């Protein structure tokens, strides 16, 4: 039986008053130790709880961003609608994109990574649990801070890539852009710390025997993404600092009238922004690479090719940023180089598509909702990928720049790609995380409504774009609408109707979650007959993940423990059941499991940051206060041991000298 040396609340509450000196940092507060109630969430450092919190917060932002999208489509349903004023429209599309990119897809990928990565590599937590908690609170603080701009003078209104000179005070006089720059700075800290944390986790904490080439593809893709974040985030950090210095401290980095070069912003932004595109899509590629083999009952076709093509996308992603700037007059040499580089990146992407398709080939397919979303991704992403190739041809791109064709392209890759992948992940891992299965019946509604909705919404945008409808305009005029099949009015209406069908699909998902929570069936631990280590434990997993850390012998370790393949016929024979494997792991359970203890400092430190940011915008004295909070928290943090001392409990519990095993609490 695994013993985690964490006193149970029952045990800790009994007994009288004892004078103790808490080991906690600065000696000011007793450090948090509760494992139940809201405190166990707010001060947690458990990667699983943080993963769930990332997921809930990101999904909330998804709904907010979705409502913004619906308002945009309402405005564009007819040529001269008056749902939104021009000012409100500008804020709406800026915040829609910012929310979806920075506050939904990135943190949702972080949710999956946080929850699943340690489980997939057979670890008990991430390398730096408190930094992990800090990352989550930074993301939440930054996201909420950014959205408070709606109530404090108006949101940012410059588009999500915030080109100069639109961002200068003369053209965007509200505080919106300040909120945008500082809010993204704060969420950037979350991404950067998360990247360092997960890279160290993957490189250092794999279970014995798990070489990098025996690691599940999802973990691989997360690793690639973290390297992209590690090197991309500092570049936008510089850009955002320069923008803040320009708007709030009188510098003129992007003011053309002061002799500045507006292309500087574009370069800095897109050196970050293009790797960012892969940061958004690669986690979903990883999810799909997990889902397809399970529901095809076949190993992933060409595992090495999938891994290396993912890494290749990561490398090439650094050399293509200027394809976002073909229309800015870079000169023929640059344009030609970036054009070719962009075409080259289609190759590793194509390799993945082929591998996924070949995984399906000859498999025993089970069309669960997760599987359908995964297949949906292959199809929709390929459509988006093909329109992407048309952008890499610079003469064609010059025609398409700033039209709805571009909007169509990136929604196919981001919605049909990234978001479909995330939904595949929801359905696949829901029983893992919550121990209950999402309804497959509602799941089918969810899937088909989303597929139909997205194709109706974004498909017509290809036509609208080629007809010349510009993006970011809140009105379009009838006389340019075209005739017959190319009638813009018709397709705009179709697109708006599609958006509401899409919203209905998302609503079906929410209903599904709600019903599952209310009366969903408790599932067995391994409902899908899965392949990788995260399923080789309870669903939901114990706080310490594994009773004993498994030794890995093969890719798809869990599957190979369950089945033996006949070498001639390829038939699979069940040799060990899930229950037997679990019983064996429990029998061999580790006696002493030290889990990192909860802490106040991550949330205190993260909450100091928006105070500084508000101060920069409104009153510098506030910044001084925020900086004091940050400094205080850093010192508290660095003086605090990662594991609570015996005297932190009230009343104190027996400490462990590493000599004896005490039956303090059984987690399970």
């Amino acid at each position: 039986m695994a013993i985690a040396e964490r006193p149970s609340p029952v045990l800790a509450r009994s007994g009288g008053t004892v004078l103790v000196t808490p080991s906690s940092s600065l000696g000011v507060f007793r450090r948090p130790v509760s494992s139940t109630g809201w405190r166990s969430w707010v001060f947690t450092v458990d990667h699983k709880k943080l993963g769930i919190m990332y997921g809930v917060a990101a999904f909330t932002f998804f709904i907010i961003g979705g409502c913004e999208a619906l308002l945009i489509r309402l405005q564009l349903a007819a040529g001269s609608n008056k749902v939104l004023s021009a000012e409100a429209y500008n804020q709406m599309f800026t915040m829609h994109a910012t929310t979806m990119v920075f506050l939904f897809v990135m943190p949702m990928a972080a949710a999956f990574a946080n929850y699943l990565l340690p489980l997939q590599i057979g670890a008990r937590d991430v390398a730096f649990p408190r930094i992990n908690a800090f990352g989550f609170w930074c993301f939440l603080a930054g996201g909420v801070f950014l959205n408070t701009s709606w109530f404090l003078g108006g949101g940012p209104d410059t588009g999500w890539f915030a080109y100069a000179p639109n961002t200068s005070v003369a053209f965007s006089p509200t505080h919106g852009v300040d909120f945008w720059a500082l809010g993204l700075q704060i969420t950037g800290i979350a991404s950067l710390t998360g990247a360092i944390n997960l890279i160290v986790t993957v490189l250092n904490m794999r279970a014995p025997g798990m070489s990098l080439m025996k690691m599940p593809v999802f973990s691989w893709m997360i690793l690639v993404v973290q390297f992209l974040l590690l090197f991309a985030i500092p570049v936008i950090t510089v850009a955002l600092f320069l923008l803040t210095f320009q708007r709030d401290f009188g510098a003129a980095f992007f003011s053309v009238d002061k002799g500045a070069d507006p292309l500087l912003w574009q370069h800095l932004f897109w050196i970050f922004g293009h790797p960012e595109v892969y940061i958004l899509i690669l986690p979903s590629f990883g999810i799909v690479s997990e889902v397809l083999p399970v529901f095809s009952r076949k190993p992933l076709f060409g595992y090495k090719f999938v891994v290396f093509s993912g890494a290749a996308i990561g490398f090439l992603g650094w050399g293509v940023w200027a394809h976002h700037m073909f229309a800015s007059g870079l000169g023929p040499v640059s344009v030609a180089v970036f054009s070719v580089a962009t075409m080259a990146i289609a190759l590793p992407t194509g390799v993945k598509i082929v591998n996924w398709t070949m995984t399906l080939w000859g498999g025993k397919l089970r069309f669960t909702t997760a599987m359908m979303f995964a297949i949906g991704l292959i199809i929709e992403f390929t459509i988006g990928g093909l329109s992407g190739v048309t952008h890499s041809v610079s003469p064609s791109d010059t025609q398409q720049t700033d039209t709805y064709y571009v909007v169509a392209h990136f929604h196919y890759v981001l919605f049909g790609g990234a978001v479909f992948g995330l939904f595949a992940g929801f359905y696949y891992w829901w029983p893992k995380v919550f121990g209950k299965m999402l309804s497959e019946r509602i799941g089918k509604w969810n899937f088909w409504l989303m597929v139909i909705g997205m194709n109706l919404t974004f498909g017509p945008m290809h036509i609208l774009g080629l007809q010349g409808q510009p993006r970011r305009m809140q009105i379009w005029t009838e006389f340019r609408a075209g005739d017959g099949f190319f009638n813009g009015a018709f397709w705009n209406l179709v697109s708006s109707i599609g958006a509401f069908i899409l919203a209905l699909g998302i609503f079906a998902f929410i209903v599904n979650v709600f019903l599952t929570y209310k009366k969903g069936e408790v599932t067995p631990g391994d409902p899908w007959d899965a392949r990788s280590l995260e399923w080789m434990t309870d669903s939901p997993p114990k706080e310490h993940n594994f009773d004993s850390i498994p030794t890995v012998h093969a890719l798809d370790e869990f599957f190979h423990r369950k089945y033996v393949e006949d070498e001639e016929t390829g038939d699979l024979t069940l040799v060990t059941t899930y229950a037997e494997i679990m019983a064996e792991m429990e029998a061999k359970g580790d006696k002493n499991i030290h889990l990192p203890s909860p802490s106040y400092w991550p949330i205190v430190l993260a909450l100091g940051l928006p105070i500084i940011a508000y101060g920069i915008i409104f009153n510098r004295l506030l910044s001084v206060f925020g900086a004091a909070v940050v400094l205080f928290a850093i010192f508290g943090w660095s003086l605090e041991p990662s594991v609570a001392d015996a005297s932190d409990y009230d009343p104190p519990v027996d400490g462990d000298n590493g000599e004896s095993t005490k039956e303090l609490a059984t987690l399970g």
Partner: protein
Amino acid sequence: MADIAAPTTPASEPDTTAAVALGVEPDIHGMVPTPGAHDDHGLVHGGGDHAGGEHGHATSTGLSNNKLAMWMFLGSECLLFGGLISTYMLYRGRHEGSPSPSQLYNIPLTSVSSFVLLMSSLTMVLAVSAAQRHDDRNTSTWLTVTALLGATFVGAQVFEFTEFYHEGLGFTTNLFGSSFFTLTGFHGVHVTVGIIMLMALVGMINRGKIPGNKAEVVEMIGLYWHFVDIVWIVIFTLVYLIPS
């Protein structure tokens, strides 16, 4: 329960000093490792922020979590300074309304302060070496000297900034001024953060308050400090020595 807990609490305090005196380092939880007490995978691998040192459990790469994380962070910092240096290189010729860079820069002064900063890397190495010998007194001394050398550099930078301001180059004067002060200012802030870390480390060593592996903490701050020095070599060369 409490009546049992009370007398045992003092005994259960990890006896760090005794462990160090015996030449045995406390493991990540400040406990003396007892052979056989911990199953190989009993601990969280690198069970926390201060884990994975030479006495923690073996990591897949063999590098401790802390050091690997610091290397990653410094890799990220390269791009931060890369962005700032690129901005400066783009804008250094745009100095309408102020003296030009070559008129402003006081190369002898900056050379001396650069030398001081480079020497602080040497003293940092001595501090790390003392920490690895468990020589707290010399560790503190060399860390203090390193911090003082760093402070001298920052002092020279403040002096230089003031001089430039009097000669007509403010932060908002022109693009050259903005990008120069941003780049060198960011570096100065990095040095200052380093000084604060060094002094905090001295205070914590003197009070015996370092959680985890002391030598490794010193080494990690050393990595940061050397990085900041190396960045300065690049800045000094590109900004001051190469004429625009």
